[in-house]
């Protein structure tokens, strides 16, 4: 939701990034204020996933120019774990499986690590158990998930719920959800969206990276952006998503080309 006088959480200016020498992001500009929900859409290969990984600090991507300020601090000089502790969260499109490490042990370790770095109290195993079970209700998750290995043998929907559970525990001020809707059936999509909606508040912001409009029926964005060739070529309100759904992406591309020709 758009609030008056909200503070800027993320400010991306002329960001260029490449992987193995190939430029992927080309002059990306993007601003997010607290309370807002943004959707970044665009065809495959437009750079959406790269952008989310760059924000989370993936080392495969080289930042060639531009700046990223997160709550006024230079995000690009932080290691991935420092970004997480500062309040950046990325829900993965393909969460990894860690057979051999119990989910509850993993969740508690991440929670306590982040808490410690934020100068807050850690929870002991019993306290944490109560705490996490409460959060799991948000996502209608069976407590059995705590006893299983991290994501091992989880269905697609279960993995995504486990991602949002981590978001609920780590309380990020900026949550980036990368294709969280992919592979979800309609029930799982409703549950996951419902969880995200309950976590959204006036102090945090959510960036949905998605290929399809259907997620946006459940999590209603304040802004919709279209990415192409490593930059945002059009921004609008939630109605833009519906237009993209019926008309596809080509017209946006044409419009952008025409505009840049005029500018030149």
């Amino acid at each position, binding site marked *: 939701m758009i609030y008056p006088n909200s503070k800027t959480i993320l400010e991306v200016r002329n960001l260029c990034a490449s992987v193995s020498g190939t430029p992927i992001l080309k002059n990306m500009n993007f601003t997010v204020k607290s309370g807002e929900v943004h959707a970044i859409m665009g065809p495959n290969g437009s750079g959406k996933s790269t952008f989310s990984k760059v924000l989370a600090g993936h080392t495969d991507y080289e930042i060639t120019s531009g700046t990223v300020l997160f709550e006024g601090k230079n995000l690009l000089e932080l290691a991935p*774990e420092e970004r997480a502790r500062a309040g950046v*969260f990325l829900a993965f499109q393909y969460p990894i499986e860690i057979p051999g490490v119990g989910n509850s042990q993993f969740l508690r370790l991440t929670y306590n690590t*982040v808490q410690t770095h934020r100068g807050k109290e850690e929870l002991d195993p019993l306290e944490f158990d109560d705490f996490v079970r409460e959060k799991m209700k948000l996502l209608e998750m069976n407590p059995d998930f705590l006893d299983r290995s991290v994501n091992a043998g989880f269905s697609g929907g279960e993995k995504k719920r486990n991602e949002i559970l981590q978001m609920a525990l780590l309380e990020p001020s900026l949550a980036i959800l990368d294709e969280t809707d992919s592979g979800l059936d309609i029930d799982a999509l409703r549950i996951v969206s419902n969880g995200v909606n309950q976590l959204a508040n006036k102090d945090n912001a959510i960036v949905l990276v998605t290929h399809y409009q259907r997620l946006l029926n459940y999590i209603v964005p304040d802004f919709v952006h279209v990415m192409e060739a490593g930059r945002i070529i059009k921004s609008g309100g939630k109605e833009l998503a519906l237009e993209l759904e019926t008309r596809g992406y080509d017209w946006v591309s044409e419009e952008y080309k025409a505009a840049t020709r005029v500018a030149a």
Partner: protein
Amino acid sequence: MSTATTQAASAYLQGLLAGQPRPAAARQAWLNQLRSSAVETVSELTIPTTRDEEWRFTDISLLTKISLQPAHAAINLASADIQRFCIEEADTRLVFVDGIYAPKLSTVAANGIVVGNLASALAKNADVLKQHLGQHASTKDNVFAALNTAFLHDAALILLPRNVAVSAPIHLLFIATQKEVVSYPRTLVLADNGCAVTVIEDYVSMQDEAYFTNAVTEFVLADNAHVNHIRVQREGAKAFHIANCSAILSRASNYQSVSVAMGARISRYNLSVKMAEGAECSADGLALISARQLADTHTCIDHAQAHGTSRQLHKCIVGGAAHAVFNGKIMVRHGAQKTDSQQSNRTLLLTEKAHVDTKPQLEIFADDVKCTHGATIGQLDSEEVFYLQSRGLSETVARNMLTYAFGAEIIERIPVTSLKRSLEQTVLEQTSTQL
């Protein structure tokens, strides 16, 4: 190796044979015969070198450079000294200190089976022992098995009568306390028709100097017997550990083994499983090594008859400048139709200098079988490390956690909870210090 060094190695063997107090002649002529023929075998063999195909990757010349003394009388240990090695689920524990049976440290639950040391059980069970002892672990071309047999004076024995299921695991604890000593642990497990047992074969050390453990273990499973064999090699950092294990599986019997190697400067484990019709086996392993350790596992699973099933997952976590070797042979004999076999070897190399040699070998002489095998070698997946970092964990913690998880997949297969927990803890500590 030059001729001169070959001679030196032979002289070394002669020294080992001569320098040791030979076991007193037994009243059983067959046992004396078994030993003396092993002595003869030893004198025909030499210490293997890397020119021997079976030892290509494992250079044990260091072993011939230490002088090994005979094992003196056992050091007097109190129960409190060995408390940390005890496994709470096991109500029967046989303890051998530097190869010598320690009755005071051992406890035997009365559960209708014969369990104890050879010296005390020999007279009563002479017939069955004569039939099996030393009959399954081949000494042919195997100088270490032959040496063990040459010095066979005591052994851990587990004899299970028909249809007896022992629920509590039996713990065989071999403790090394003295430096520059050679010990010859020996184990025989006879599982009669339809019985079930879990045996933990555990090698530990109370000191960090060089010594040599040369072990031989024989399992004989009669029809429908079910044996869990857990082997933990946590010898001292400068130890040499060479072990030969043979498991003979009769019709529809089931042998499940998990072997963990984390100790010793140089270790070598040969496991040979011979399977009759419809037998099942799993032979899983984990080598967790660092510094300049070398851990070599050679296995041979022999599907001698039809309808057998075998599963093998062997993992290595190699840090420092350590060196892991895995040679896994699956043999499917002529007529062993409907064999179902899967083998996989996965290695994690933690450093630039860590090194593995892996050699899966499939030899199939039947035409209606299902056999798969494969090997992977790699570093930690950077996507996985990134995932954990994106949750606030430092790169070091992330790497440790993934390394731990890699090993935990094997440890989890150990069906004894307290041992599993303590090994998980050890893996956690090992993987946290290596990086």
